[in-house]
């Protein structure tokens, strides 16, 4: 077992342990905080696939987070009102079953990621950052100015969606759902990265010219990773919508993209469990510093600056430095 694997296990155990202890002490609020951390971590894991392992600095992942959230809210609100979402070409009814909502959320955000990725990946470097940001902003403005589902005010639904056999209103049971999905996503990522696809992706990130000389086309690889990444982030968005029973264009805003990126960087780019640590620290900081001052984001900003300038490997990089083999 490498040191990084050990750190990964400790991080996950800490998150799940916090929720369990809080539950035992009757601190429902802390369980909800842990749930939020698990959902943000899932979003971070998704972005990490594109950013850390694929080398695609996307500043537009809020688009997929928000799309996942809106899919969840739209299906739930239609289930509540009894009206179908669409009648042509075939009837799509609303639903309040999570196992039905998740695949739809992932499919729609995956589709969006496919379209945005296919265009954005024609560019590289600074252009890629700006183009992903701009496309996310396009979807943001669409959500703001489209009155059908609340526009600027957002869309709330009053009952959390259900999961067969579980009571999703119980904070610890909802945490269990989110944490299970997080662990599953981590497992899928670990498998992907060990497979030929992951190795090729890594190779294309480190040296595109050499990868191409070996007969690997980076474009297709990157697009696949981008779509997978968008799907995971979309799932996180659906879970987040259910946590709050509310979605608004804020989920699509570029501040959200920045925050998801912060989760990844705080923990450590390209580290499997980096985003989990990053999201947990972010939530902890928000809670602790938010209690100290209303202007806690100044402190967060300074902390971030410090990490970027002096500890570029993030938290996991500090604890388990990676041997340099360049």
């Amino acid at each position: 077992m490498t040191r990084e694997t050990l750190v990964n296990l400790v991080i996950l155990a800490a998150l799940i342990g916090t929720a369990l202890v809080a539950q035992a002490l009757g601190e429902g609020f802390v369980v909800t905080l842990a749930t939020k951390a698990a959902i943000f971590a899932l979003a971070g894991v998704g972005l990490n696939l594109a950013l850390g392992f694929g080398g695609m600095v996307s500043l537009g992942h809020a688009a997929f987070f928000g799309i996942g959230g809106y899919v969840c809210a739209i299906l739930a609100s239609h289930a509540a009102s009894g009206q179908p979402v669409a009648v042509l070409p075939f009837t799509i009814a609303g639903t309040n079953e999570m196992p039905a909502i998740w695949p739809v959320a992932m499919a729609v955000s995956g589709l969006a990621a496919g379209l945005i990725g296919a265009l954005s990946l024609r560019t590289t470097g600074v252009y890629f950052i700006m183009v992903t940001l701009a496309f996310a902003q396009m979807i943001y403005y669409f959500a703001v100015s489209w009155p059908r589902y609340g526009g600027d005010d957002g869309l709330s639904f009053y009952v959390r969606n259900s999961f067969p056999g579980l009571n999703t209103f119980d904070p610890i049971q909802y945490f269990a759902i989110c944490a299970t999905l997080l662990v599953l996503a981590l497992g899928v990522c670990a498998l992907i990265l060990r497979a030929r696809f992951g190795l090729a992706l890594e190779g294309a990130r480190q040296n595109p010219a050499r990868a191409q000389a070996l007969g690997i086309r980076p474009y297709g690889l990157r697009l696949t990773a981008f779509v997978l990444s968008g799907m995971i982030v979309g799932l996180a968005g659906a879970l987040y919508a259910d946590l709050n029973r509310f979605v608004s264009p804020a989920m699509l805003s570029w501040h959200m993209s920045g925050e998801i990126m912060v989760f990844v960087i705080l923990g450590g780019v390209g580290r499997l469990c980096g985003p989990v640590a990053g999201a947990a620290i972010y939530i902890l900081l928000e809670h602790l510093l938010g209690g100290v001052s209303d202007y806690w984001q100044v402190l967060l900003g300074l902390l971030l600056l410090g990490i970027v300038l002096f500890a570029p490997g993030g938290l996991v990089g500090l604890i388990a430095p990676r041997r340099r083999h360049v």
Partner: protein
Amino acid sequence: MLLAEQALNGLQYGMMLFLMAAGLTLVFGVMGLINLAHGALYMVGAFACAAVAGATGSFWLGLGASLAAAAAAGALVELAVIRRLYARDHLDQVLATFALILVFSEGTRWLFGAFPLYLTLPPALSGAVTLPGGLQYPLFRLVIIGLGGAVALGLFWLIGRTRLGIRIRAGEADREMIGALGVDIARLYTIVFALGAGLAGLAGALVGTIQSVQVGMGEPVLILAFVVIVIGGIGSIKGALVGALMVGMTDTLGKALLPGLLARVTDAASANAVGSALASMLIYILMAAVLIVRPQGLFGVRAG
């Protein structure tokens, strides 16, 4: 008549975007740095203008203060943070400048409060003028158009005709070489960054006068400036000008005309909804179209 007025609005909007995009594109082109905090400097300019104009009662002093404060803030940020980022990858740059936004935004909220401030125009600039053809148009918006044009000409002169401009262009082409030729490259970078910051601050003060001065006002403009640069091509002032005018016109005319055009084919309510939603996406569709045809932008030389 409506069309002419909207075209002028689009021109004014485009000029304002140009002031933002010019600084960004210079910093991209010369230093290879992506600066998300450019919108924060825009905000600094607007607040400096509002504070100085409020304290002294002179709008002109405020306008001067916006330039000076934003340029000073830019120079300070460059010396303290940005110059450590030139050698880093874009991810670090994005993150560090995102952190700067948090610091600037919350710091400003702390200093000035969350309520928007309003600027009053001096009598010489307020009111409307009658243009040939009988169109009444606010004088101040014409002043912005003129000012934007003057800045554009000034920049073309600066980049094309002066020693500083030669150095900036040389820095874009090969930074090691001009360092070896005895140009103080660190100082050159600080100057370019402060120049871009000053222009952003000026844009912030001008727009703050039309709309309001508030925390977070810079970010929507920043993203539009990115779109402008993607369309125009990184590092090209000419590209920034053309891109800014295209984006300004497309956005303004789209928002003004699309709902009306759609109303001819469907009923008014849904035409209004679809029209405004579509109009808000129009510039991004324009950007996507440019990307498909020319991924390096209209005036860009290379991608990446």
